[in-house]
């Protein structure tokens, strides 16, 4: 009798297992085969306010075309690595990707993973430099410029400068004097905030020094690889930077957004950052914010967010439609009006810009100022992470020995 009970229990357990497996299989099949919502998927680096602004642009697109768009924001590393990995596997979950790395885009184009956009946009509607960065040697264009971010200089709090009788510097010597003055102010930890995360805030600051002290041409030559990192002209620029670091004018690198909060709390006097700082919630009152360019600079790094279409997309026509919309003046005007960014299309009217954005636009539009690509974005690859990493080293150990080792490491990676 007991044996029978055991057999019955075993039988019921077996039936239960089979039922669970069957139900699991049915659910799995349904999940895989369920009808997917029609529409496009866009990848970008944006989150928070930046994403919210972009979503408004996408909503306008959906209203006009009836095409639904899903946006997925990634971190720098996720996008930098995730997209090429998918493409190299011959697949893409995104129909359109927005990324600010021209070298990365050209590498993907060279490996034949992208759709050519030469005929989808009017190249003359954009600054030549923006287009040339994503044009291959055969003259084919592989990405459409969407929005741009200027990295115009050092941001400061007007009331802080006023309260402490500080003046915007016009020369490099005045800049150094300003740092010395800020250093003396009570409550100040260091004069300049240093941002960190993966390293781009330090590279942006360094590029300002390269262009400000060595000229925009030096940055272009470094991108092209025609100047060595160990050459005298590069060493001279880095030596000036090293001296400021050694004097304690820069803070220890810390998470860049938390540094914006500390900057606004007057723990630091100035912060080198892109124009997107005007949209950040840490800035209490944007009307109290202003910037000054690196003294006597003749160059400014412009970072452009480019739209690319992976050739593996299943919604090619719709993706092309979205790319054309984002590259057009209407979408860019919407984005510009939301603040923090510049349009790339020349048809975006000046009236769309807020006061600070207009000031940035006016500064970078001067004939004496050249817009050059962001150095580490333009070179890309392993050089980019090496550049970030070596700058972190220089920031925390600003000795002559470290400087030599940093420049040698950069040359080794660039060479």
């Amino acid at each position, binding site marked *: 009798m007991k044996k029978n009970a055991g057999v019955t229990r075993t039988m019921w357990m077996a039936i239960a297992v089979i039922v669970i497996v069957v139900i699991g299989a049915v659910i799995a099949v349904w999940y895989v085969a369920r009808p997917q919502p029609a529409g496009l998927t866009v990848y970008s680096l944006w989150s928070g306010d930046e994403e919210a602004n972009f979503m408004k642009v996408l909503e306008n697109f959906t209203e006009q075309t009836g095409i639904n768009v899903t946006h997925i924001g990634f971190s720098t590393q996720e996008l930098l690595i995730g997209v090429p990995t998918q493409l190299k596997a011959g697949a893409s979950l995104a129909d359109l990707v927005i990324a600010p790395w021209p070298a990365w885009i050209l*590498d993907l184009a060279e490996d034949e993973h992208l759709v050519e956009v030469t005929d989808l946009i009017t190249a003359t509607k954009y600054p030549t430099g923006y287009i040339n960065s994503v044009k291959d040697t055969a003259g084919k264009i592989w990405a459409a410029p969407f929005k741009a971010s200027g990295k115009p200089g050092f941001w400061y709090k007007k009331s802080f400068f006023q309260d402490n009788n500080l003046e915007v510097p016009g020369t490099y010597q005045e800049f150094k004097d300003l740092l010395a003055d800020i250093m003396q102010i009570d409550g100040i930890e260091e004069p300049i905030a240093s941002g960190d995360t993966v390293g781009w805030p330090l590279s942006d600051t360094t590029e300002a020094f390269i262009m400000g002290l060595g000229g925009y041409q030096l940055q272009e030559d470094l991108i092209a690889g025609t100047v060595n990192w160990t050459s005298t002209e590069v060493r001279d620029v880095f030596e000036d930077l090293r001296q400021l670091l050694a004097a304690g004018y820069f803070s*220890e*690198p*810390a998470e860049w957004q938390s540094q914006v909060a500390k900057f606004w709390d007057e723990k630091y006097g100035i912060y080198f950052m892109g124009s997107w700082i005007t949209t950040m919630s840490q800035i209490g009152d944007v009307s109290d914010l202003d910037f000054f360019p690196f003294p006597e600079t003749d160059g400014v790094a412009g970072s452009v967010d480019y739209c690319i279409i992976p050739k593996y997309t299943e919604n090619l026509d719709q993706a092309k439609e979205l790319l054309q919309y984002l590259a057009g003046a209407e979408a860019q005007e919407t984005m510009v009006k939301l603040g923090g960014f510049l349009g790339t299309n020349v048809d975006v009217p000046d009236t769309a810009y807020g006061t600070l954005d207009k000031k940035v636009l006016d500064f970078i539009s001067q004939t004496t100022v050249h817009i050059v690509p962001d150095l580490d974005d333009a070179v890309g690859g392993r050089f980019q*992470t090496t550049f970030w*990493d070596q700058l972190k080293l220089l920031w925390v*150990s600003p000795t002559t020995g470290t400087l030599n080792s940093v420049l040698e490491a950069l040359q080794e990676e660039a060479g």
Partner: protein
Amino acid sequence: MRHCKKKQDKTIAYGGAETKGRTITPLVFLIPAFLLVTIFVLYPVVSTVSLSLFQDSKFVGFNNYLELFGRRSFSQALIHNGLWILIHLPLSVFFGLLLAVLLRQVKGGAIIKSIIFLGMVIPLVVGGILFRFIYDTDAGVVNALLRFIGLGSIARSWTFYPDTALISLIIGTIWIWTGFSMIVYSAGLEGIPIELYEAAKIDGASRWKTFWRITVPMLRPATIVVVTMTLLWVLKVFDVVYVATFGGPGGASTVMAFEMYLDAFQAFNFGRASAIATILTLMTFGFAAYMVNRMAKS
């Protein structure tokens, strides 16, 4: 008796078939495992080794390996992995054994052990983020402690500096890994016959002598397990480095697995990344084979 003879005859008659069946049946059961190992282990290993001999689809022989050993960052990574082994391995073994022995005799030791073992439950990615906070200048508990004991002047973000980044990570992971060695040693201690200790006591052996002459030798199998697992883990350490320092500053905390990641997914140089993977595999395989052999002998 007649019955037995009949059975014996039957065995003789079918002996060959039975032996054959005994050989084939286990093999049949091994097929699924063999297939899985072939598809998910052997094939990737062979592919990786083969890929390490190519660069952009061109056969380059051992060039990727030669290039690696000529690179400063890889030499740095090799040295750092060596330092992980030299520092992390003895300390985590020592603390694991110490805690296992001490907590065995303490009331509520099991609860304390569970708390210490919690470190092992933390994913290393989370561990890496924790380390960034723990070592942070303003928010970090390490610097708070230093300030409390009057050493505030040396407070800084320990993972940011080249001279302290690597050692900070190693110390942090010792905290995480000690829970593992403590648990293995605790299980080992339970397996030592009590009679041995009683005999030693009767013979008048001191506690120190008993520890060295009975406990340590009897824990040899546990030690081999701890050393093997720790070595393998240390050789392939990646996640905590990626999250806490990204190998920096200036490559000060880079390790081989991180270099492999950079080559594969930053430079998209799969040939060179495969060469690192092959070197790592050979090293871990060599260590594992040696330790397993010792374990079998012991």
